[in-house]
């Protein structure tokens, strides 16, 4: 019964937020883009609203959070009651505060990692597609071999060797993910490189940098942007999984993955507090996925 109620409540909230966000976006958008927002599905507007909410939370964490990030404010495992609306964790830190700071830490680290993976992977991928020949062959064979090691397993191997700190975490995940970005950027660029306008630009005598900047990148932006969203989800889930396994972001930094781990014992008592950080992860990933899906759908629709 409670399950059913919460599902219904969730759906109601989803429609409410989704339609409100769509109406808001439609009103705020410049007239040229109005149709884009008028036709957007509820899932996408819901996703945009959620992403916006997380961004605000991350930026304003110290202002919004009632307590300090790792401040011990009371007894451990306090129930949900004022002034600790979501209770306390096993060290007696305010759960709500740590959730809010988690938005900043977990999402921030995942974003930085994705950005790094993206710059490295897409530059290499486009370059390989443009150069072709032996260089492309060797680089791609090597990346293929690396990709034959499952991402999480490879990350674990690298973390064992280099130890676990936030910096190595970012570098390791970025390196592993860059191989996936490379593969996509290369195939997108390969589709563009065979176009006659690239041949025309080459025959004109354009340099490599201009070819990438003016001829390839503008045409690769749409798929790459969608891929950025998808990659972010993967990275975010991977970092959360590693933190959950105790190998990612370390305490006392507030991080959603490790918060689940630290408080997991409560689950066996039927307390859903540990599910809150896990739900926070899920919600953001869902939101990003919804928006990406909408964009991909739009791109494929425009082609026809």
């Amino acid at each position, binding site marked *: 019964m409670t399950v059913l109620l919460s599902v219904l409540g969730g759906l109601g909230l989803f429609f409410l937020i989704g339609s409100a966000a769509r109406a808001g976006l439609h009103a705020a958008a410049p007239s040229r883009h109005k149709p884009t927002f008028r036709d957007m599905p509820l899932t996408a507007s819901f996703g945009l609203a959620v992403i916006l909410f997380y961004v605000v939370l991350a930026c304003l964490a110290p202002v919004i959070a009632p307590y300090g990030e790792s401040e011990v404010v009371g007894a451990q495992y306090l129930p949900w009651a004022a002034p600790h609306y979501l209770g306390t964790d096993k060290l007696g830190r305010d759960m709500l505060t740590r959730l809010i700071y988690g938005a900043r830490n977990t999402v921030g680290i995942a974003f930085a990692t994705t950005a790094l993976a993206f710059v490295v992977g897409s530059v290499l991928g486009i370059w390989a597609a443009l150069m072709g020949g032996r260089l492309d062959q060797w680089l791609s064979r090597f990346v293929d071999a690396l990709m034959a090691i499952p991402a999480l397993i490879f990350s674990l191997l690298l973390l064992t060797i280099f130890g676990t700190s936030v910096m190595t975490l970012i570098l390791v995940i970025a390196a592993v993910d860059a191989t996936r970005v490379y593969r996509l950027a290369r195939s997108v660029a390969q589709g563009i490189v065979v176009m006659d*306008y690239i041949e025309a630009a080459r025959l004109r005598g354009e340099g490599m940098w201009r070819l990438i900047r003016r001829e390839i990148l503008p*045409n690769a932006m749409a798929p790459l942007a969608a891929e950025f969203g998808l990659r972010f989800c993967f990275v975010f889930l991977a970092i959360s999984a590693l933190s959950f396994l105790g190998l990612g972001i370390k305490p006392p930094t507030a991080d959603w993955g490790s918060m689940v781990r630290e408080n997991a014992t409560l689950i066996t008592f039927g307390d859903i507090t540990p599910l809150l950080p896990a739900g926070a992860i899920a919600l953001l990933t869902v939101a990003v996925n919804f928006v990406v899906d909408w964009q991909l759908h739009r791109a494929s629709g425009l082609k026809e």
Partner: protein
Amino acid sequence: MEEPALLTIRGLRIEGRSGDEWHPIVKGMDLTLRRGEVLGLIGESGAGKSTLGLAAMGFARDGCRISGGTIDFDGIDLRSAPESRRRGLRGKRIAYVAQSAAASFNPAHKLIDQYCESPVVHGVMPRDRAEADAVELYRRMRLPNPEEIGFRYPHQVSGGQLQRAMTAMAMACRPDLIIFDEPTTALDVTTQIEVLAAIRDIVRQFGTAAIYITHDLAVVAQMADRIKVLLRGEEVEEAETRGMLAAPREEYTRSLWAVRSFARAERPPATGTPVVSVRDVTAGYGAVDVLTDVSFDIHAGRTVAVVGESGSGKSTTARVITGLLPPRKGEVLFNGKPLPSGFKARSRDELRQCQMIYQMADTALNPKLRLRELIGRPAEMYLGLKGKALETRIRDLLALIELEPGKFIDRLPGELSGGQKQRIGIARALAAEPQLIICDEVTSALDQIVQEGILKLLDRLQVELSLAYMFITHDLATVKAIADEVVVMQHGVVVERGRKAALFADPKEDYTKLLLSSVPEMDPDWLNRLLAERSGSGPQA
């Protein structure tokens, strides 16, 4: 005595969906077809020919819907009949032959299995009789090895043969009506003849009614008893084939006819050093030679048309000249001086002198750049123009290709029509102020009326700027229109070269003769005459 009508369409409306909106494709069409009659549907792309053809089977593609009118096939209302009833007719009494046989045969099954599917499923005949029948029809379609060819998979058979096998498959249940949807458009001219002849014979033998859809007037003239001209989903006119060819009523129909009449006279032979001279070039990919000992010259102010069917090596020749494919042997001279074989080794000025216009303007223009940059970039790069001077030059170029500068300069390619895009391709080539322009099938993706505009523009520019053109094409009508000299290629070898008038009047080589005679003419008796001639002069076709 008139046969009763087999198919009657009245006030047919069909809509297509883009996004959430429906827009009309066919706007209230009438059509009557009697038993045994062949109706030609002709029109440019977007005229609604294929949509109308499919509607004759009570079928609308995904994203399309029949929104009004009636379709009556031999007393059956195809719009109100249940889907199972329509399904029972399709393949049995109404059959379909698609444009691309290679894509329309299922790659997973043998030809004969696909042939037997309709007769067996529709209960017309058992499998063993269907197989025997298939062999008979393959023979009538003049397929090689009719006993054996059915046991091959589609990818093991050539395009022209597949198209005939598909026609045989359509005949399997001896339907009352066959829809031919551009069945020879994807084929080379010499192959097209065989397929056309086979299709026409079999339709006549069985007295099958047919709707023959094409954009090629000369083809429809051979195939159809009556012709219906379509434009943007509406009928322009309909008449008996001979009547319409002799005296088209409507302005639009006359303009379709007129395209073929554009032809400029051959210019006198040029003297002096040729702009480009291809000398004994042998080139290829990997270990395979695509070109063998190719030689020809192009002079300033003259057009050399390089003609051949697919795989003849005409585009490869262009790649050698532009330096994309360094030749194994031979060289390319520019104004008498040898060019470095790879384009990377060429100087900026050498690159500037030779420009290219592509077949598909869609892929030749970067969709994310505005016309200002598309046209301006060569001028900026090669001639060092900047600021005001560059702006003026871009506007001049736009005016030169007959596009209003103020309106177009900040547009993206996606905001242009096909013909306008091709004009931008021309402007980009002109911006470099070259001596030679290579035109690679520049008109073949365009509708006929647009083609004429492009050809006339190119011709005018040639006179004004004394340009040398290398014109790659498979279309001999285009050659007639614009060439001074013709180079005929086959399998990577120059078969024959010569002045246009002389070559057309008196071809020396067998292949040139075959190629020239294979081009359909408007005369409805052309195919009969040609077949008679060929069967008289030995086993040439």
